[in-house]
């Protein structure tokens, strides 16, 4: 066999691994009923592929070949171990007996398997950290090291989270199923929450030097697309739109020196028009479904900003009314704060300030730096410099993130010049 053929096969196997390994894994988990066994089988199947495809040629359907090879290998392995543990014999027979019905419609079930994998990784019986780690590891194929780096934790911590989650899935028998229709809305919310969490972690790192960890956001957008493809729900569209619209401003959001730039000061020519167009189209589709949820509303607010070429042209009355809608769909102090800022833009800073003070008076958001920063900005516009200064200082004491601290320090310095 020529060196050339071998290289070609290796290249093909690499490509198939990149594009298909997660799909194959999802199916193997269903067939074998175990995450670890499936992963082992996956890697064995790919190892055998290099050897066998070089010798016998590429199979017609590499994915199906890999699924059945992985499965037979796993059953072989269990059979070999039955010599030491008789209880495994039953398992091997059980796994073998399912082979014929499972292979009848491989193309149809493969999408379902990917959805099953997503829902199992985001099962509410797992902690939120475990849901995120499992999703990135199993659905996206990130390594433990990559996940640890992205979340600024140690690889052993992430590995332990994954091991515990897998043990819980096995021992508490968390099903490998797309939830029933009655449970679906709640369970889908959990999946959307995990995806948005991954996106936000990438978009605004919770601490450290770098404000954006692009890979995580890109991964979340990929996940959002996958989910929408598998389950075209209005809120899945809304979330994807929201992520695309935020991400479209990435280049404009941070200066060359790594400083944060506010929406109104951003160079709008740097915004990614393709992402905006895609996001806006998705919002239209989601609204047309008449099942509008919080992600779609937030996306619509973001979309209003994306579509004007100059901040002075922003349609603040429309944005305030979308916030009113959001307060009905998913009320929270943070939504209230954002609404207050929009009201300030529509009716003037005094109106906005009254709303923020009312939130503080209730005892909400007192530890949220953005609330103090928003208050400072409104005070500054009203010429109440001493109050603005105090609020910026309060905000500074509440954030560890370096670019955001620099931003607040600059604002504070700007006030001093003012005097």
């Amino acid at each position, binding site marked *: 066999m020529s060196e050339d053929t071998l290289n070609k096969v290796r290249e093909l196997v690499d490509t198939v691994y990149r594009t298909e390994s997660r799909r194959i894994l999802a199916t193997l988990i269903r067939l074998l009923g175990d995450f670890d066994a499936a992963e082992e089988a996956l890697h064995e199947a790919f190892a055998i592929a290099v050897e066998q495809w070089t010798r016998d040629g590429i199979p017609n359907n590499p994915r199906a070949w890999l699924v059945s090879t992985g499965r037979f290998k796993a059953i072989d392995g269990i059979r070999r171990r039955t010599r030491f543990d008789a209880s495994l014999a039953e398992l091997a027979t059980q796994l073998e007996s399912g082979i014929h019905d499972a292979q009848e419609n491989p193309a149809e079930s493969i999408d379902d398997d990917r959805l099953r994998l997503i829902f199992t990784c985001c099962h509410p*019986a797992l902690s939120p950290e475990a849901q995120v780690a499992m999703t990135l590891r199993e659905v996206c194929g990130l390594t433990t090291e990559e996940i640890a780096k992205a979340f600024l934790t140690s690889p052993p911590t992430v590995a332990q989270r994954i091991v515990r989650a897998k043990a819980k899935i096995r021992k508490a028998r968390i099903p490998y199923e797309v939830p029933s229709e009655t449970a679906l809305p709640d369970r889908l919310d959990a999946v959307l929450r995990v995806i948005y969490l991954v996106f936000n972690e990438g978009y605004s790192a919770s601490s450290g030097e770098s404000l954006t960890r692009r890979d995580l956001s890109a991964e979340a957008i990929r996940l959002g697309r996958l989910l929408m493809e598998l389950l075209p729900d209005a809120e899945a569209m809304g979330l994807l739109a929201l992520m695309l619209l935020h991400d479209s401003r990435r280049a404009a959001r941070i200066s060359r020196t790594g400083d944060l730039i506010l929406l109104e000061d951003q160079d709008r020519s740097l915004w990614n028009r393709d992402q905006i167009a895609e996001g806006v189209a998705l919002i239209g589709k989601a609204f047309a479904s008449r099942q509008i949820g919080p992600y779609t509303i937030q996306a619509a607010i973001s979309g209003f900003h994306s579509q004007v070429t100059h901040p002075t042209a922003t349609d603040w009355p429309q944005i305030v009314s979308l916030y009113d809608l959001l307060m009905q769909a998913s009320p929270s102090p943070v939504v209230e704060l954002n609404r207050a800022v929009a009201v300030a833009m529509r009716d003037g800073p005094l109106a906005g300030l009254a709303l923020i003070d009312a939130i503080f008076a209730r005892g909400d958001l007192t530890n949220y730096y953005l609330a103090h920063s928003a208050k400072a900005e409104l005070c500054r516009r009203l010429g109440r410099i001493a109050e603005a200064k105090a609020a910026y200082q309060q905000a500074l004491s509440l954030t560890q993130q370096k670019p955001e601290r620099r931003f607040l320090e600059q604002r504070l310095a700007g006030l001093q010049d003012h005097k």
Partner: protein
Amino acid sequence: MKFLLLVHHDENAFSKMSETTRKEMLEKSVHLTHQLHNKGQYLSASPLHPASTAVIVRVREDKPLVTDGPFIETREQLAGYFLINANDLDEAVGIAVQVPGARIGSVEVRPLIEISGLPTEKC
């Protein structure tokens, strides 16, 4: 697969509830056991006397230590249990949400480890 549903609630709050409400809850619980039984999912269930009736037994260096208790900081105490059969966790959770105690307290869902060598049960 077997799951144990441990029903916890605040005993003080429970004791302050009206006699009728408590009776209603008990009736609903009994009703649930019959529903489960019809589907072959019922193994056993029972309410428990208040935690004040409990004793704690420990054996240290072969010496039994019997004390009152439990001295648990949490307000919620174990109030009863259901031992059920379910195919998977989602099915077990689906049963747990029907437990009347879940409305005033919480239900902890625990998978059982299946071991061999136990006396055979009649169910």
